[in-house]
């Protein structure tokens, strides 16, 4: 009996130890990456291309874009895709996410990031941070899971709005009325820069 208690105690102990370890690991990893991005942004000597390149390198290592692509499409739709379509969709989606992240960098103006202690939610870890600007404070929740290549972010909640969730509803809306070809076409044709330029032109005239 004593031995069982001992074993149980020992197991619980190591489990908690491992848990603390995991949390610390994730915290350190994300903090490091966030700080990397910020230091790149604050470095005024870099030109735009270098800056974007560096940031993309960091986020590629932090986010699991492929899983994000898979999750942004509901299972019932994903099952009906051919292998080729799956590939095409993943590529388009990943490109889009990267572009939109890089494009956001232009809005950066000396915001600071505050970190809360990370929390274990089932198998995954949720890491709450705040983006503090001069007049507002946005919450950013990173959801991290353990992949084969270490801890990776699979979703980001900005002010409680999940990126994956918004894509799921939007894709659902498109696919309910159209086919996967329509969706791919939409993802392809959607050119950020062309859209901005057009808008600016509209605003000027």
């Amino acid at each position, binding site marked *: 009996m004593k031995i069982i208690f001992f074993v149980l105690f020992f197991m619980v102990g190591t489990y908690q130890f491992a848990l603390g370890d995991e949390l610390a690991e994730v915290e350190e990893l994300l903090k490091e990456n966030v700080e990397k991005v910020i230091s790149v942004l604050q470095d005024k000597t870099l030109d735009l291309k270098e800056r974007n390149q560096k940031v993309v390198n960091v986020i590629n290592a932090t986010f699991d874009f*492929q899983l994000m692509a898979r999750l942004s499409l509901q299972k019932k739709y994903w099952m009906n895709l051919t292998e080729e379509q799956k590939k095409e969709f993943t590529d388009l989606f990943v490109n889009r996410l990267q572009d939109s992240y890089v494009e956001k960098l232009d*809005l950066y103006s000396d915001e600071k990031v505050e970190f809360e202690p990370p929390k274990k939610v089932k198998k995954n870890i949720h890491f709450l941070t705040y983006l503090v600007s*001069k007049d507002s404070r946005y919450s950013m929740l990173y959801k991290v899971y353990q992949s084969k290549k270490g801890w990776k972010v699979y979703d980001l909640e900005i002010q409680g709005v999940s990126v994956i969730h*918004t894509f799921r*509803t939007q894709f659902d809306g498109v696919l309910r009325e159209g086919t996967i070809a329509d969706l791919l076409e939409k993802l392809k044709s959607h050119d*950020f820069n062309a*859209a*901005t330029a057009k808008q600016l032109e*509209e605003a000027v005239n």
Partner: protein
Amino acid sequence: MVFWPAEPTSFQVKMFYFKKIILCLWFFHFVYVSSADARLSLDSEGVSSLKSPAAFSKFIEFQFEHSWDHLQPHILGLSVQAIPTDRETLDIPDTVTDDEDLFFEEEFVNEFEKEFNKTADSKVFDPLSGYNRFMTQVNDKFYFYLLKPIANGYRFILPQGIRLSVARFFKNLLFPMHFVNNILQFKFKQAGVEFARFGLNTTIGIGGFWDPAEYWLDLNSYPEDFGQTLGYYGVGGGFHLVLPILGPSNFRDLIGLIGDMYLDPICYVGTCYAGHGEIALSLRSSKTINTTSLHIGEYESIKKDALDLYTFIRDAYEQKRKKEIKE
């Protein structure tokens, strides 16, 4: 114009000068506070103090050269420049699918699926989608053709420090709303923080133009509105509704908005209820313009991200409210 009573009593004369002095103090404080941000950024440039005359003149020079830094030509619409993302020149592999383990095992993905299905289980109730879509377009046009050009002009005239002060002033006025709704939700600690913030910021922060509660004591605001209070007591969102100018909302939050009007000082200053709404209207529009001037580029960025703007905004709004109520 009656500027002076026929025979001023000594008390009235004293009050007259007292008011002048307070006004002057306020003005100087205002200038001081609004230049604080610039001074902070100067410090980060390497000038550690402004005590010596040389440092001061450098500060003035810096102010002069850099106060309009934030005005980028493409935001002002002076020249249309596409922001280069340059996929070709960047070292990003164009296809990610060459990886051998691209597709995940179904069992593994199912767990994540469950998570997202759970958050999605309460679908947004949207019987007015036709009208809502139309109103989203109207608001979009309103932003690009009216609000944004005005906010840009305003931004051109006033430096950021002053605009931030104005934003703090309007935020301070939201105190009655935050306080009462925190109490109604039994969040007494948060209500206490709001009370302390209001007390400090109105006195030491001179009418709320400065925020000592946050700068010195790290007391952040806990914004709660009546819509959240209703949600706290279990009232569901009802149908989604896009309001003219104000943007996305739903039935519950519309009721909340009306409730909040009774706790809004701006309404009492300008008599929202009694017909003469000009003052309230002008105060409200300056608030909107000021806020917009501090956030130009954000809506554009959201719009670019969205595959379908209306669905995106609606979904984001409902998720955000759900989270705010849960907290």
